């Protein structure tokens, strides 16, 4: 209905088509939901839902296939990059992505992610780093911060016993097969918007056949960190960003050259 000044009420935002109508099982305020939304928005905007295949991890996102409205496979813990390799190699014109947490990608799946990146597999990996194991009740992750309390580091992560956190963007960016390796954060709307741009760039890198792309997203786990959703986002900003600096760790020249301003 147009008003006298030629204005019309328009739809600005609604739940993306690439998400199912199903409500998720994630805790209130968990940033998994934001990450899912951003991926779905990008897939909708690129118009590739009907040729996209996702690979779900073992972790809180084990039921991701119920929330994304597209073909999906459920991988064994850590093995998603290998499964995605098999899927993409036999169906090179499909869009293949994995969605993995810090245990799945950086612990049990460390070999698989390293080699998928090293081979330059034309897949996109969305890496949810919340410095803890959510699904199993809050144990230490490879990305748990020094001094951070978890159920398996009850007095705080002791570097002498458990070593240092793994910085996956820094590690994978050294590989020639990696085309786009960036770290973003989901702790406030401005950073969420930047995260979405990075996710779009990663999927574009895949569609251009440039090699392996990964977006690491600093995320929260209010339940296992023992704080409110809002405080959890603050904790990301105050404590995780200094240890896991945001930025572009590897950007293929074809992407750099195509960049505006």
């Amino acid at each position, binding site marked *: 209905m147009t008003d006298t000044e030629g204005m019309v009420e*328009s739809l600005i935002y609604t739940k993306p088509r690439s998400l199912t109508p199903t409500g*998720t099982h994630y805790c209130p305020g968990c940033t998994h939901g934001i990450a899912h939304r951003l991926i779905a928005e990008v897939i909708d905007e690129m118009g590739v839902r009907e040729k996209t295949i996702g690979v779900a991890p073992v972790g809180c996102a084990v039921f991701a296939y119920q929330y994304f409205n597209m073909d999906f496979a459920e991988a064994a813990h850590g093995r998603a990059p290998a499964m995605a390799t098999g899927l993409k190699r036999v169906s090179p014109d499909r869009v293949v992505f994995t969605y993995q947490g810090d245990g799945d990608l950086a612990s049990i799946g460390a070999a698989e992610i390293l080699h998928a990146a090293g081979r330059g597999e034309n897949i996109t990996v969305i890496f949810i780093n919340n410095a803890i194991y959510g699904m199993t009740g809050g144990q230490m992750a490879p990305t748990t911060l020094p001094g951070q309390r978890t159920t398996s580091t009850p007095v705080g992560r002791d570097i002498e016993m458990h070593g240092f956190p793994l910085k996956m963007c820094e590690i994978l960016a050294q590989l020639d097969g990696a085309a786009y390796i960036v770290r973003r954060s989901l702790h406030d709307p401005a950073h969420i918007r930047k995260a979405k741009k990075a996710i779009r760039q990663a999927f574009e890198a895949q569609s251009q056949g440039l090699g392996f792309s990964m977006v690491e997203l600093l995320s929260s786990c209010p339940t296992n960190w023992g704080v409110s959703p809002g405080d959890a986002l603050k904790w990301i900003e105050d404590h995780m960003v200094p240890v896991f600096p945001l930025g572009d760790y590897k950007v293929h020249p074809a992407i750099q050259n195509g960049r505006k301003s």
Partner: protein
Amino acid sequence: MARGRIVVNEELCKGCELCLAVCPKSLIHMATDRFTPKGYRPAELVDPEGECTGCAICSTICPEAAITVYRWVPAKKAVPLGE
């Protein structure tokens, strides 16, 4: 009249209050007179003065994609509501 408005899907809202924290005009409140079917206090727009601009910052942070945002725009820029 407000330039924008939001509708919160109470099947999906988990009462996490992140939208409340980011609204630049503090127009979102948690309802006190009801629970969602899952037992959460849903967020709702309380905008008696018509201040909502439809900026969509709330929907940017909503983890459940529970918020639908509308805004009055020039006719040629409009997206149909039925989408």
